[in-house]
């Protein structure tokens, strides 16, 4: 638990070709990269959720220790996050090797071995799984889309942008410059509170990640279909439910992780007699 995390920057190993600055830079790169890894169930970065316990860089190897909010977190979702973390880190320049360690999970040895050997979820679980987790991932990405859609609609509604107007707009008609929202179709320029701007940004960045550069602004599924005009109210209600569900769950996970850290820390103290 208390091995050198490289944070001090003082303890370059003898024989290491890497300078302290190199190491710090790589570590910062690694952390930045990890902040793009999302918990698919919660639609929040694993760094924000507190799942990243430790990052260290020794020579060209980056090692990441991860902990989930409970011992029982579903292996499928855990696997998605670990795979994403592994692949994202592998793409960083200057990194030769990535070592992922999941701690305190009921299936940690099996998952760690498979992730670090580059195996897929199906290869890891064999007959216990029936299909790949891509379909499940899709379900949750759609929930995330709807949750973010609700955030965007409620944020802009505060400034008098009606949902009907949003429905008529194209993706290119809305732009966010800092906290200024440029709504082109009506020739308006609105300054948003940072929180509201954040909601618009979250939705827009999701669309960008989907690879969308044009088309309707409001989309209801990953194919980019807009919601039906006659069902706008129902769409809004269901996307509100999705947002509440993700938010509630994220709140629970954070609270559980906090309780868990406290407990494990005191257990650690007990066992060393301190």
């Amino acid at each position, binding site marked *: 638990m208390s091995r050198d995390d490289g944070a001090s920057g003082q303890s370059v190993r003898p024989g290491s070709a890497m300078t302290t600055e190199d190491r710090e830079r790589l570590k910062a790169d690694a952390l930045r990269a990890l902040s793009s890894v999302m918990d698919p169930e919660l639609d929040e970065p694993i760094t924000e959720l507190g799942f990243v316990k430790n990052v260290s860089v020794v020579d060209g190897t980056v090692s990441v220790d991860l902990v989930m909010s409970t*011992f029982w977190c579903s292996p499928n979702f855990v696997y998605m996050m670990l795979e994403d973390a592994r692949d994202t880190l592998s793409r960083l320049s200057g990194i030769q090797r990535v070592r992922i360690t999941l701690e305190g999970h009921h299936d940690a040895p099996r998952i760690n071995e498979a992730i670090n050997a580059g195996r897929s979820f199906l290869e890891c679980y064999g007959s216990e799984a029936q299909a790949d987790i891509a379909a499940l991932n899709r379900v949750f990405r759609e929930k995330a889309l709807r949750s973010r859609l609700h955030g965007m609609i409620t944020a802009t509604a505060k400034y008098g942008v009606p949902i009907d107007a949003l429905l008529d707009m194209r993706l290119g008609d809305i732009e966010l410059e800092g906290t200024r929202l440029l709504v082109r179709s009506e020739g308006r320029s609105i300054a948003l509170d940072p929180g509201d701007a954040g909601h618009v940004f979250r939705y827009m960045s999701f669309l960008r990640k989907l690879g969308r550069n044009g088309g309707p602004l409001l989309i209801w599924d990953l194919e980019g279909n807009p919601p039906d005009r006659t069902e706008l109210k129902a769409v809004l209600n269901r996307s509100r439910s999705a947002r*509440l569900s993700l938010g509630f769950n994220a709140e629970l996970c954070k*609270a559980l992780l906090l309780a868990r850290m406290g*407990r494990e820390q005191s257990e650690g103290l007990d066992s060393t007699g301190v």
Partner: protein
Amino acid sequence: MIIAEGADGKRQEMFVIDYHTHIWNASRENWLRPNLAKGWIDCFYDYHKALSPPEYVWDYETYLYYGEERAIEDLFGKGYVDMAIFQPTQLNYFYKKGFGDPDITAQYMLKHPDRFVMGSRWDPREGEAGKEKLAEQARKYRVRPFHMKHTKLYTAEWMEENGGVSRGWRLDSKEAFAYLDKCKELGITIQVPHKGPTIWPLDKDAFDVGDVDVAATSYPDLRFVVTHIGLPRIEDFAWIATQDKNVYAGMAVAIAFIHNRPRYFAEMMAELLYWLGPDRILFGSDYALWHPKWIIEDFVRFKMPEDLKKEYGVDLTMETKKKILGENAARLWGIDIAQMKTKLRNDDVAKALKIKPQVIRAGGRKRSR
């Protein structure tokens, strides 16, 4: 029993039925596979610590095993609960004698058959033997009409199978339907599916409530109380509960947000009232995950924020609170509240613990006698 006093000073009695309670045994000598047994109760303890007010946090040792007397005092003595419904949890893969074995739980009920409401559990992987056992439990334990009317379904239970481990089952399988048929035959009309981690096969959505939808549609005369309201799939749960009128919201876990995360609780409550209405929501503390006392006090005092009232067009009125705290469960289990009020006023538990109805003021002032 509580006497709730509204902000207008109007008082009314509320009979409290806690649909979700345990007397578990997670003591060390009961650990069969220590890593898993400890992992299980540690996770419960983290839930307990994460959401309880600090003065209600137990020490770990007490949490492992608190026993019958403590439970009676907490639930009925301090916790305002009039009747507590057991939700047995087997877990023989983790614990030697099970975590909350129904036959052990039944012994507590037999001593207090008007206080504890007995149910059992089933698992389709137990085949014909499991059905016979269920029939025997229904025969032995239905000492009042409201006993053995429900079964807790823990679809993520681990079990030895063909020399390996099977990590769960689905409610929409042929084998599960055979059990639902058996339940109908035995008069076990309420199914309480828990949605929790990890389910087999592992690639499926662990909390997917889709299988409840299939079962609820196929068995319209059975009732399904989805415990933990399908967390974290609330939107899917709300959707199926809107379609299937025999699906109910079990508030265990969700209601515990009320103290430390009141805004989330309010949004959740508004959401449930919007989709399901006030008649299909049940109060549950999940004792000893949480103590019912603080939950009930907070719940009676809780005011739905104005913005949510406006947005959802719902309110959490005293009438609705009364339904959620007891009337909805009473209707489901066939409990006659008026009759039980009279009976429990002077039963052995009330006498031993000197239980009197307590006034809780929604105006926000502390409880008085």
